């Protein structure tokens, strides 16, 4: 099927995109009976400027039935028919720390027209992800005195443990979270998140940072 990005037509609208907090699915209002296109992009990014290119890629790609398909780097699309919307009570999100935009489609034979939204508002939703972590200084008890018969005392080992309290969010890219130590930028990889606990030998507590506006780091 050929996909074409077409101008706004008042009769074909998809708007009020939001999260249903009971199902955690996307839901929206659209022209009755029409299929909609859900586009997932990196957090805070809008696909509106790239829709023509996205439609070209969709025309060439084999789109998964009832699932997301990556048509461009970090851009995923999913077609949702009216029946699927009712059955699934919306559309499940693919991953957190992303933005989603909805467009109304109109099928004319072998061509699917993807209509531009009628206003910038209410057609997109940004879904952040939260990552809780804790940092603890690692110490050990060392016995003092002759032959270790004195009282034990706590001694700093020079290590810090960083524990990631939440599972790795889907779609996490290596380097979304990083540390800055000694002028070096050290990325946190997916493997480190899955391991949960990482030890650092450093004089100061390691504090993770992120430049992904969709990822919120919260220290516990």
């Amino acid at each position: 099927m050929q996909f074409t990005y077409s101008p706004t037509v008042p009769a074909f609208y998809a708007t009020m995109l939001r999260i249903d907090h009971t199902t955690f699915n996307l839901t929206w209002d659209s022209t009755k009976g029409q299929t909609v296109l859900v586009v997932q992009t990196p957090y805070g990014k809008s696909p509106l400027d790239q829709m023509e290119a996205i439609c070209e890629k969709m025309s060439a790609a084999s789109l998964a039935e009832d699932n997301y398909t990556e048509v461009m780097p970090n851009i995923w699309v999913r077609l949702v028919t009216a029946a699927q919307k009712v059955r699934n009570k919306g559309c499940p999100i693919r991953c957190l720390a992303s933005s989603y935009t909805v467009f109304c489609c109109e099928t004319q034979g072998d061509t699917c027209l993807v209509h531009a939204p009628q206003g910038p508002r209410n057609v997109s939703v940004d879904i952040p992800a939260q990552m809780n972590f804790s940092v603890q200084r690692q110490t050990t008890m060392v016995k003092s005195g002759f032959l270790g018969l004195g009282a034990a005392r706590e001694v700093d080992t020079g290590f810090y443990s960083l524990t990631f309290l939440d599972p790795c969010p889907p779609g996490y890219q290596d380097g979304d979270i990083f540390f800055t130590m000694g002028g070096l930028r050290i990325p946190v990889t997916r493997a480190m998140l899955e391991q949960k606990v990482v030890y650092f030998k450093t004089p100061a507590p390691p504090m993770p940072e992120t430049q992904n506006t969709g990822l919120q780091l919260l220290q516990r």
Partner: protein
Amino acid sequence: MYQITCPYCFRTFSHRAVHFRSERVSTGECDILPDDYYDINDFQARYQGQDKERILAMYRDWDFFRPVDDPEYSKFWNGPDGFGGTSERDPAGEKLGVLAFNRRVLNPGDIGHQRYLRQQRDGGFLIYDQDGFATNVELLSGESCNRRVCPHCHNPLPPQYGKHPVKFTTVIGITGAGKTVYLAQLIRNLSNYAAKVGLSCVANNAAARLFLDENRVIQNQPLPGASPSNRLLQPLFYDLIKTAPGGRKETQTFVLFDVAGENCVDPDLMHRFGRFIEHAHGIFLLIDPKQFDVIRSITPYDPHAGSYDEPASSATAVLDAIHNLVAQGKADEKCRIPMAVCISKSDTEEMRQVMVPQLCDMMVSDVEPITDQFGRGYPVFNAANYSPIAYGLHQFVLANEPALEQTLFNNYAAYNYFAFSALGCDVQNGCPVGPILPKRIEEPLLWLFYRFGYLAPSGQLYTPAPEFPPCPQCGGYHVAPVPEAERAVTVRHFLRKETYYVTYQCGDCGYRW
């Protein structure tokens, strides 16, 4: 048997005291007088024929039904306490050349009018329906007159008005809060909203249709302008019908009034409009988000926007004025009229910036009905769907407008917070630019239906103000909870003692239950 409260002057009268507008109207020139005479005075002065009295009687009969300026009606609308002229529209009358309020008012109890009315079998002149409700009178010339009017102010009463219990509901908001658009959207879809809760809704008069014709909300077309603040718009009448347990049909009438908020803080205007608040059984208070400081602080300056800085335009000032009016000197009593505090335009970008994202999503979702196995709405208010929103809005107001919340808490016994969007789309240059999708506009109305007893709540309903039931002994409202330590009451009988528990105590009569 049937007592009617006029929805204009609020005087109460029996259904038998109602007056009627005549269907017979004398128009054009009178052709009863012979051609030689200029007018009735000339005829009386010069005519000497023996049939003079007969001709005079015919002329008086013709003249009685001539269109007149109704003094009672004019006094209500144009008098010193009037509203700057009537807002009643009569499209049919405009085509016929005789407006409804210019037709002669017939009083079946007036001997002078009875000579024109056909006497009924019971000796009276009123015609009753099968329920014994006075509906019309009949002229000797055969016309059936069923346009009922109040006997005091001569304002029109819709058909069947007064037959069923009536609840008055007043919508208040400052100019620009969105009252007109809200009302237009609400009444356009009222049948569907009522069906969600198992009610049928029928408009009782043409006012709703005329209101919609004059206040169209259409995509890409200018929104209706603000109604003049010192004018009284025609009330909107609806009959709500439901099937009670047992299959019995129950009908209630509810009336909507539109009152500008400025009319509530100006003493002169309050004198005229106050009656629509005093007699209300429920009040909608519409607040534009821009009345909140937190919203104003992030909104770019717009030189064309109205000012929200003056005290007169604050919701708190309106609430104080309403309480003072309703309390009527009893400053230590809370106003018992349920107050739906509604934040309009809840889907704007500024609201999304200051509200919790989850709350924003809930505010733009649809009100979920509770249905039976056939898909018909149950007559219940979906508290589970509403309570999280009420809680979120309450927290927002507590954090950002504590004075508003405190005013409500101290002065009102029953209130709750609502948020809706009457358009559900952007507005540019005064025109809605997207598909018009009202969100949650029916929720405050359904809450008032619950307060009126039309609906039961499903589940625990969040309320910002604790509510206590009235005293079952004296009916007083000075009720407080009994302290925990005193709730167990032990009563000694002859050979035994009995312990029971009380929860409330009445401050008026001391009764505990």
